[in-house]
């Protein structure tokens, strides 16, 4: 037999396979343990050793994956469509909050780039861009100290990069605050939360980490290519900084999610190794 051979190992594996409300998962585990202990006791009474009795009990009970699968053939334990939508919405809301905060962080980074490398590095116009006299007058209203229309336009564009991104960051903080409040208020979250209504693992393990690593990884790659292309093609004075700041923050966030996913995979692998028979 390739699966778990002790009752404790079997229950560990079953817990990993089960999906649903925490109270329902606990009930399944409690009933499974009762059953396995009874079966093992019967084996002992029939003259088997403790190890043989547990192995026989576990084999007769069936594969943890099959047993857990039978529970979720219709739907995860005690979980309906509403709970699935709730969990999905919660995960996406958190991703949105992180995304907005990342945009805010890129705004802060842009400010730093601007002070070190100048307005043109962050928001310089591409070669050949011109403005009407009316537009120039508007730019000079924002930046009367500018030496030229182009300089005033660049300064104004750099202001916009910073202010819009910082506003997105502020919005992200609000969304995150609302998410935390909702989680505290209604108690529904994944993982090992035993408050009433808590749901265990309706979404696949690592869903948020995979989504985050993918989304922010792609964003970082696209923005990085844009920044590099602009620096190589038209030079550092054509505003690659706005893309570069976004690329750096996105890559950092993607790395954070990737590390979280790696930790989850390692812990699952260790749990499976603990619940497998010794070599």
């Amino acid at each position, binding site marked *: 037999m390739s699966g778990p051979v002790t009752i404790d190992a079997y229950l560990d594996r079953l817990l990993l396979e089960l999906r649903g409300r925490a109270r329902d998962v606990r009930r*399944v585990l*409690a*009933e499974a343990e*009762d*059953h396995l202990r009874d*079966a093992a006791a019967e084996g002992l009474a029939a003259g088997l050793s403790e190890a043989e009795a547990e192995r026989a009990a576990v084999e007769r009970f*069936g594969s943890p994956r099959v047993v857990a699968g*039978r529970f979720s053939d219709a739907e995860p*334990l005690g979980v309906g469509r509403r709970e699935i939508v709730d969990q999905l919405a919660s995960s996406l809301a958190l991703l949105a909050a992180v995304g907005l905060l990342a945009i805010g962080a890129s705004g802060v980074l842009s400010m730093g780039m601007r002070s070190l490398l100048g307005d043109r590095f962050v928001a310089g116009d591409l070669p050949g861009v011109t403005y009407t006299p009316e537009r120039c007058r508007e730019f000079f209203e924002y930046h009367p100290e500018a030496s030229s229309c182009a300089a005033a336009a660049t300064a104004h564009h750099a202001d916009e990069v910073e202010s819009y991104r910082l506003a997105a960051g502020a919005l992200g903080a609000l969304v995150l605050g609302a998410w935390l409040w909702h989680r505290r208020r209604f108690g529904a979250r994944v993982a090992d939360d035993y408050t009433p209504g808590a749901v265990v693992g309706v979404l696949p393990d690592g869903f948020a980490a995979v989504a985050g690593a993918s989304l922010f990884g792609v964003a970082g790659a696209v923005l990085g290519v844009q920044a590099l292309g602009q620096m190589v093609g038209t030079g550092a004075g054509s505003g690659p900084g706005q893309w570069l700041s976004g690329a750096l923050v996105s890559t950092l966030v993607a790395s954070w999610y990737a590390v979280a996913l790696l930790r989850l995979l390692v812990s699952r692998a260790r749990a499976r190794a603990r619940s497998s028979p010794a070599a």
Partner: protein
Amino acid sequence: MRRRSAGQLEMLLLAVLAGAPRHGYGVIEALRERSEGAFDLAEGTVYPALRRLEDAGLVRSRWSEVEGRRRRVYEVTGTGAEVLTERRTEWTALVRGVDAVLGWSS
């Protein structure tokens, strides 16, 4: 309360529980004994079936102290007993019909 047809396994579980309330292991033992070993399924799969019966309102369960241990004990509801009677009638008619086709006396 939802009332639906019980599958074959669920019909057998209802029949076992109709005799007396039992916990899951007791249900398996009774099923094995009464079938004289003919029904010897993966024991863990009984619990999802009991769960389906409970969701359908055909059985109910509660935690109970049995021989000093806390066990989940299942018993048939009134609706479950009615469904079992219907299924027994259907099964008897099916067996009679099959026997007739095969040329065996019932």
